[in-house]
């Protein structure tokens, strides 16, 4: 994201020149003219050369050729850049000619270009340059010859072998190119490199070994055998790599596989390579290694089993099936996992055979494999037979597997199992999971009416309706509650850093309005899910006919998805009272419903459920569902909760309801507040004399010994000049800090004005209302009234010192609540009233700025958080 930010900033950078006209950029003639014109800037020359590469023809040759000898390196480069792009074969002649005329760096560039666009004549010139006094030119010539890779180029390079490492590198490059058309010639070249004593690096020597192994036929295989058993680790690595590159050839594969026994130190990795090589000729050797039950080398056996799996060849299947039955559980599990991922019918067939074997273990392994391989029809047919198996474990696993693999055709089988034994949990789960696979989002139009994300308690939210609608329009049916829905504000996408957030959405689905609330990182499924008729109808019809435990079992199936269909089934069952067990189950399902859709049901059951126990559960369900119902205004929610208090049958529930009401009232108490500080930056504040900053979501000011605060100053809130309001905040002060919240103040950074909710580190002034002229006028623990004539009356309601001890704790976060209305100002510290003040004088300002003070003095640290305000 930083990247974007930088790019945005750079968009503002002004170009060094005016852009070339589009008509010039695509006209060969005009570009040539531009290059020939005396006044053309270097930048334009480079651009013109490049563009000739894009649109130029032989007509540009002379102009570009002339620039190959330009005294500026970047102009020479641009000319080559353009020329190399022009497809005409005669470009080679141009470079050849230039090579005869140029020297030094200019020649170096041209030599490079000859590697890309050279011809037979270039080979001759480059060969001559192999012994150039300028080593860079000699090296570049070798490289160019390697790229051209004609037979002649290779021959010349071989002749110069050992002169410098560049020649060896070029030989390798040419040999690799030639190997495709003439492996023997390449092999001879690789051998020559390996046999050269000087100027061949170890990497080149190893590369030549690899090359010779894969190109030299039988000789190559012999080389490989020696290499894989070498004591040099790099040589062994090279041999291993050659297994991947060696041409397809069963004889070679067999030769590699034989070494599984001999090259002991490399066998694990060799087994892996043979798996990746994928030639079935390696199967017998790998199978023997994997199935060697006498071997203590379990890792080796595992590696061989993995290799058989990676091979993905039907020939490996019998070996893997045998390993599934291995005594070593690791090996067996490994083989099983391998078969799971094994593509193709051969593995399917083998699994079916296993399921039909007589042994219990084989059957169970077969079922597990069929399940994991997600085999369908043929496997399901066998599984249906196994449902009746006399072994309960086999029968149980078969039922489970049908739930996972079966289609609507298998529903009768599962219904039959349930009918015979309604307590069969496997069958109930299997049928439910089968139905779940038939659940589809109901097609329909979704319109997002509102989507708000953030911390609602503290009013730190962002409207994300547009972004959510965009996602929906692009086909998303699930919306994840995360900052990714939010706008980038230049710092983050988090509207409330470090706080628990929720996403609240109101949307219509096919015209029906729905509301939903989810926590951060959870997802909303926007469209209702329904089970398709093919699966739903047979289960529903069996349910309608069933009675007793069977009906109860099918009820579980039908309501497991918590969808509209389930709601309907549950509501109907809850009404009927013939079958008490079913009715009770239905009531329990409804009061635990996952969405607020069953709020009314829960309310009804809290009053009318047949037993007290159910009434209690319903009451709790009602409260839980009400918490999710954010579309109901809080005031109404409080009313509903108060009404519901009457339903509480016991003392315990009465307490529970009382605390639910209190919670909701607290929520209401906080409702309507808007944040004064975004937790990220000072964008909502100004002034402050440079003292204030934001760290970890906290607004803070700090002074030091060497940087003391010498002038009392104020950070001014930009949110206007409120008169009647309630403001809340939390503050934390260092022992020597002196600060305060200024109310109805003047628009000034330095010096005090207006009233102040006072505070200092020791707590001595906390809870006092201060005024710059009247000082601690609103005393702590007193109601002070100044009448219109300016006469003051004081009525103490608590002892000031005791009140300080009661409401304030130094060194921790404390809360301030400031309520201003008309002539009255009330201060609460940690929710306890500390000062009540009325000023009826007509000339006292009744509105003004809100500011945070930093008082001059000793080094201090002042911290604020959760600053919020509600206009009254």
């Amino acid at each position, binding site marked *: 994201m930083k990247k974007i930010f930088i790019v945005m900033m750079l968009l503002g950078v002004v170009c060094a020149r005016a852009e070339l006209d589009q008509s010039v950029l695509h006209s060969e003639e005009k570009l040539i003219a531009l290059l020939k014109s005396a006044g053309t800037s270097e930048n334009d020359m*480079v651009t013109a050369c490049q563009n000739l590469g894009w649109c130029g023809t032989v007509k540009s040759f002379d102009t570009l050729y002339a620039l190959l000898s330009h005294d500026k390196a*970047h102009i020479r*480069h641009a000319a080559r850049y353009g020329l190399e792009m022009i497809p005409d074969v005669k470009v080679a002649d141009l470079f050849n000619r230039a090579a005869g005329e140029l020297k030094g760096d200019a020649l170096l560039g041209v030599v490079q270009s000859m590697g890309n666009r050279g011809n037979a004549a270039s080979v001759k010139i480059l060969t001559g340059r192999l012994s150039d006094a300028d080593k860079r030119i000699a090296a570049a010539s070798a490289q160019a010859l390697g790229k051209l890779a004609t037979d002649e180029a290779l021959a010349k390079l071989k002749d110069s072998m050992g002169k410098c490492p560049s020649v060896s590198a070029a030989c390798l490059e040419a040999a690799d190119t030639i190997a495709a058309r003439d492996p023997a010639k390449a092999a001879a070249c690789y051998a020559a490199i390996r046999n050269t004593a000087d100027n061949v690096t170890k990497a080149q020597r190893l*590369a030549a070994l690899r090359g010779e192994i894969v190109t030299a036929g039988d000789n190559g295989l012999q080389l490989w055998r020696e290499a894989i058993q070498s004591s040099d680790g790099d040589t062994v690595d090279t041999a291993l790599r050659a297994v991947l590159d060696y041409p397809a050839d069963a004889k070679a594969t067999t030769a590699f596989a034989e070494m599984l026994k001999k090259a002991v130190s490399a066998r*694990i990795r060799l087994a892996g*390579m043979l798996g990746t090589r994928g030639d079935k000729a390696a199967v017998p050797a790998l199978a023997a290694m994997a199935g060697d039950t006498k071997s203590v080398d379990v890792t080796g056996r595992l590696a061989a089993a993995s290799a058989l799996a990676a091979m993905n060849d039907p020939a490996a299947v019998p070996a893997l099936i045998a390993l599934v039955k291995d005594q070593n559980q690791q090996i067996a599990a490994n083989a099983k996992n391998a078969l799971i*991922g094994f593509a193709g019918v051969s593995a399917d067939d083998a699994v079916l055979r296993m399921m039909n074997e007589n042994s219990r273990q084989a059957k169970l392994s077969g079922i597990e494999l069929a399940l994991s391989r997600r085999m369908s029809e043929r496997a399901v047919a066998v599984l249906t037979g196994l449902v009746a198996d006399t072994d309960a474990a086999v029968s149980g696993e078969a039922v489970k597997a049908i739930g996972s693999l079966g289609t609507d055709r298998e529903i009768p089988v599962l219904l039959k199992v349930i009918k015979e034994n309604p307590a069969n949990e496997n069958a109930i789960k299997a049928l439910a999971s089968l139905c779940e696979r038939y659940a589809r989002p109901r097609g329909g139009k979704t319109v997002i009416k509102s989507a708000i994300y953030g911390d609602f308690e503290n009013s730190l939210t962002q409207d994300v309706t547009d972004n959510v609608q965009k996602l929906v329009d692009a086909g998303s049916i699930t919306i994840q509650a995360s900052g990714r829905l939010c706008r980038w504000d230049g710092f983050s996408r988090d509207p409330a850093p470090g706080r628990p957030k929720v996403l609240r959405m109101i949307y219509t689905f096919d015209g029906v309005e729905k509301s939903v609330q989810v926590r951060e990182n959870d997802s909303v499924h926007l469209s209702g899910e329904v089970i398709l008729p093919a699966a739903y109808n047979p289960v529903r019809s069996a349910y309608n006919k069933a009675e007793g435990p069977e009906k109860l079992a099918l009820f579980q199936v039908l309501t497991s998805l918590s969808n509209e269909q389930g709601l309907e089934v549950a509501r109907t069952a809850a009404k009927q009272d013939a079958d008490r067990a079913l009715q009770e189950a239905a009531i329990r399902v409804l009061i635990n419903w996952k969405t607020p859709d069953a709020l009314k049901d829960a309310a009804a059951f809290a009053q009318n459920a047949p037993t007290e126990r159910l009434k209690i559960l319903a009451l709790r369900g009602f409260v839980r569902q009400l918490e999710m119902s954010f579309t109901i205004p809080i005031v109404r929610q409080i009313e509903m909760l108060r009404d519901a208090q009457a339903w509480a049958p016991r003392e315990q529930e009465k307490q529970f309801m009382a605390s639910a009401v209190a919670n909701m009232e607290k929520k209401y108490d906080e409702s309507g507040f808007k944040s004064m500080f975004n937790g990220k930056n000072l964008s909502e504040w100004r002034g402050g004399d440079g003292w204030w900053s934001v760290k970890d979501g906290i607004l803070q000011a700090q002074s030091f010994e060497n940087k003391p605060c010498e002038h009392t100053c104020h950070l001014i809130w930009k949110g206007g000049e409120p008169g009647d309001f309630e403001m809340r905040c939390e503050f934390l002060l260092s022992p020597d800090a002196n600060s305060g919240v200024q109310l109805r103040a003047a628009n000034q950074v330095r010096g005090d004005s207006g009233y102040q909710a006072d505070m200092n580190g020791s707590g001595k002034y906390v809870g006092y209302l201060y005024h710059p002229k009247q000082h601690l006028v609103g005393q702590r623990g007193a109601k002070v009234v100044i009448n219109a004539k300016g006469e003051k009356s004081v009525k103490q309601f608590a002892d000031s010192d005791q009140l300080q001890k009661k409401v304030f704790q130094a060194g921790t976060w404390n809360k301030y609540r400031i309520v201003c209305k008309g002539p009255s100002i009330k201060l609460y510290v940690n929710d306890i009233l500390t000062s009540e003040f009325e000023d009826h004088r007509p000339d006292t300002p009744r509105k003004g700025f809100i500011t945070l003070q930093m008082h001059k003095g000793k080094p201090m640290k002042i911290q604020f958080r959760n600053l919020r305000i509600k206009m009254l």
Partner: protein
Amino acid sequence: MKRVVKERAGDFSRRKFLKSAAAVGGAVALPTFVPASALGRDGNVAPSERIVMAGIGLGRRGSGDLKNWVLPNKDAQFVAICDVWKERRDSIKKLTDRAYGNKDCKTYVEMMEVLARPDIDAILTATSDRLHATVSIRAMRAGKDVYTEKPASMTIAEGQAVVKTAREYGRVYQAGMQRLSEANFIVCNELLRMGRLGEVKTVYAHLAPFGDVNMKRDWLPAEPLPKAEDFDWDRWLGPCPWRPYNKHYINGGWHHQHDFYTSVIGEWGSHTFAQCHDALGMTDTSPVHYPYVDNPTADGMAMRFANGVTMIQKQEGWRGTCGVRYVGSEGWCSCADGYARPEVSNPAMLADYQKILQDYITRTGHIVGHMEDFFRCVRSRTHTTADPELMHRSMSTVHCANIAQWLKRDLTWDPVKEEFVNDEQANRFRSRAAREGWQIC
């Protein structure tokens, strides 16, 4: 030798990886994986020697790779940093020395010097786009294995050279498309490969929502050239066209410059195309048809593979970055960074999420964690998840799409001959001439 259709694994801090590995372990009782310790040269004995690693050009992204993936990994020992920028050399040295509690990290300006050190096994490179292939090829020629950040090629020819060099020198190479080794993206690709989505005819690859296909060709005003020991402008440019020094280029301004950048398509396409190529098994080919789209970002371009499967690049449709979306006859799945789980047409598809992941790991030998996968392959010498071929083919798709947009016409690409069909002009853009002294491919 036939190229096995490989399944691959993606990105993760080590801590996250361990967490997910633990979750996987919970689902399957037995370890069924050949342990990395067994892949050392001594067979069953855990290798005492670590993979010795050096960095070339590590800035913001590269230092993250180093800090999160290399330094905490006991399998690796980071010993040297090469950077043309002193500030960054010093900060990487500081980071490394602090992590190891010593002063041993050496610093270099010239990459050939660090590549000449015989004790170094592997290179981590995270220069910006323009040098990834140059560094990778030079390192492999020196016998080093390479982990390179993306986009790993500037041109089609560079990609070909990376493939050729890795083969010639038998080197292990991993391109930084780390989502290929991230659990959520692996599961999406597995859903497609296992046929759970039915027949997949259309996939969507997320395109960055910023930038332009047509890039700038600025010469910003010349500023005083810094001293080479503080910042080496010539080495920074490498094979790319010279222009006067201006610090904006090096502070991120290289983005959106034709000479240094692979356009808005390369920005995320280098990830998302690779993810799609891999899921579809198109690891050794590219789409054949590139229809020109008349908007500045090529949003909506529907590239078609020879078998008729269409890959559409889209800017919208995800709530995180670098997303993919696979649409089949029986369902669809979609994933981007930050998703708790992939989004699927039917939640039942993810019921056995952990098992899908475990099966993938067992079957392929690849693990969750892109750098860890690299280290594992350095030991075993086998193919990485993002090997040269997948890098080259998915980057070819990026380059072809760019060229179609530059030329404002539909293009047909022959992925076997690696040339455009009947379009000599498009073919011109397959390579670029290197500056004097910088030719490597």
